[in-house]
């Protein structure tokens, strides 16, 4: 077992895989995780506010940016996590696997951390294109795992704190020749034991090589016999691995290899961000090559999340008898589409920002919600309950805080980008408020109830 773990660790070791690399990528990944947590919490509470929570309606692009950052940082985490796991992979084979009961907790916390993080990134990425091949609900698990990840990260940092501070700075991590300075046995006993054993093995190999060469020379003189071949498969394999690791012992080569590793991780991270973030950020839109969404694509030059067919509103939304009810104290005032069009038209440029990260600003035209509420004799500054025509779905009935109800920029929109709303964008009327997630910008509006 000891031999096996040692060989596995030796096979996996490389000049890039050390505590300094782990510290560098750990820092970046930690920062990205915190950004994801904070933007994620903001998005969560926008959708499920606690009692009395109020949110800013200005700037109108606040949620567009916060959720764009959430998704983009999440995508950036993929190369960063791979680089981080690459840096620490040989540690998996440390010997002895567990020295102390506390090690059980440490390794368990790392296992939990790695499992939760990989799952979070994989499911998060697939969620951005609405693919759910797993047997559990995405939203709830994503939310719960975020706490598990940050919690196990905190424990991981606590355990590794001495190593992290030891390798925080580059100049403390490498010697004058650019060789990685190994941690003391006190800091990382398993690594020190491994390095000691590696050096002993290398010494033994050099000794054997010299001895074999001597023997060969003697043999050649005597019988002209060929050198003895390596004994057995294991022996040959071990020697082969040795020869592959030989190049790593040159400090110059190891340094170049390390630079290549950091460059690869940097380019990959920058690359996946640059070629996908255009779905969320206008300046990067021309570079959008791999995002699951393209701005400007779709009816009204706008992407769709849920179609009218999926929401089963194809008939009800086209019904000429459609009415929008504004209900105040149990009394409904009905507005026909013609009445709504009869209001003084209002124009606003507001973004639709989807939870899945894509966003686009549209030119909306419709009735100001404050005007509509006034026409129905309803007070503004009240919480509203919005109901859609859709047959089912978690967002058929939603609530809207008074801060949005009272904001004069909030529209009951009838037109988008100079055309009547397409049925997939919520014809005959939809809500559009500043700074809210797209799922709450109710399409196919049916009623607005003023809550007391």
């Amino acid at each position, binding site marked *: 077992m000891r031999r096996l773990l040692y060989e596995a660790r030796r096979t996996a070791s490389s000049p890039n895989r050390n505590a300094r690399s782990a510290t560098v990528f750990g820092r970046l990944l930690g920062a990205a995780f915190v950004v994801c947590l904070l933007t994620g919490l903001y998005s969560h509470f926008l959708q499920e506010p606690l009692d009395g929570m109020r949110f800013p309606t200005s700037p109108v692009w606040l949620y567009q940016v916060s959720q764009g950052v959430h998704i983009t940082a999440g995508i950036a985490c993929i190369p960063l996590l791979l680089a981080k*796991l690459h840096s620490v992979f040989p540690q998996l084979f440390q010997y002895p696997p567990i020295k102390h009961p506390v090690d059980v907790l440490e390794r368990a916390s790392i296992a939990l951390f790695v499992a*939760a993080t990989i799952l979070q990134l994989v499911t998060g990425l697939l969620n951005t*294109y609405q693919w759910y091949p797993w047997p559990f609900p995405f939203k709830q698990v994503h939310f719960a795992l975020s706490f598990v990840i940050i919690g196990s990260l905190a424990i991981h940092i*606590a355990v590794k704190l001495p190593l992290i501070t030891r390798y925080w700075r580059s100049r403390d991590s490498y010697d004058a020749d650019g060789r990685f300075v190994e941690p003391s046995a006190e800091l990382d006993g398993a690594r020190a034991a491994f390095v000691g054993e590696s050096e002993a093995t290398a010494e033994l190999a050099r000794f054997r090589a010299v001895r074999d060469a001597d023997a060969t020379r003697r043999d050649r003189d005597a019988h002209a016999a060929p050198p003895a071949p390596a004994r057995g498969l294991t022996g040959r394999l071990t020697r082969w691995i040795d020869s592959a690791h*030989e190049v790593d012992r040159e400090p110059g080569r190891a340094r170049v290899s390390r630079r290549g590793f950091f460059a690869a991780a940097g380019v990959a991270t920058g690359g996946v961000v640059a070629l996908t973030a255009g779905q969320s950020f206008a300046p990067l839109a021309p570079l959008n090559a791999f995002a699951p969404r393209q701005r400007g694509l779709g009816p009204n030059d706008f992407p769709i999340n849920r179609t009218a067919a999926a929401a089963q509103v194809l008939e009800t939304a086209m019904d000429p008898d459609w009415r929008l009810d504004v209900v105040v104290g149990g009394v409904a005032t009905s507005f026909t589409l013609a009445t709504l069009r009869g209001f003084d038209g209002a124009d606003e440029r507001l973004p639709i920002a989807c939870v899945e990260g894509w966003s686009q600003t549209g030119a909306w035209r419709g009735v100001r919600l404050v005007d509509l509420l006034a026409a129905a004799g309803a007070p503004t500054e009240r919480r509203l309950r919005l109901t859609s025509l859709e047959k089912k779905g978690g967002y058929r009935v939603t609530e809207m805080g008074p801060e949005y109800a009272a904001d004069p920029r909030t529209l009951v929109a009838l037109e988008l980008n100079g055309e009547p709303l397409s049925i997939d964008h919520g014809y005959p009327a939809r809500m559009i408020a500043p700074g809210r997630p797209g799922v709450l910008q109710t399409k196919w509006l049916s009623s607005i109830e003023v809550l007391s």
Partner: protein
Amino acid sequence: MTARVPAASTSAGGAGTSRTVRVVRTVLVALGVALIGLGGWVLTDTVDPNRYGGLLLWLVGSVVVHDAVLAPVVAVVSLLARRAGRRVPAAVFAVVQAAVVVGAIFSLVVVPEIVAKARGPKNDTVLPFDYGLRLAVLWAVIALLTAAVVALYLARRRQKVRPSTDQV
């Protein structure tokens, strides 16, 4: 040899440093345990217990796919490449390796999109591109850039060598 090993700063930091470390560690562990507890509570509060099995399977599967498949393959390929590339100049080897890594990571991100698109997205504005073609183009661009960088490096190295040999 003359390594500026700051072992002194960690070991000789005295009682003050170690007390700070101890306090920070205690706070982090307490915070970590509390957050994991919160995550567990949120999970049990919002997810149907009959989904736990599937979730556990996917959690374990995530680690297995990385630690038992992806990482060993990378380790072995890296070893094979290092052995095969012993005679290649270090910089050229590093550039080629970095290029392959970048392409592989992009593939890891883009291939699920190709699969999801083949399965049929929920509407035409989801996954609108031909991701397979774009990934192929990306690999071609990476290959061209890598070739250009390597050629430039080799040319400059030869230039550096030649004047000195001319003088001799």
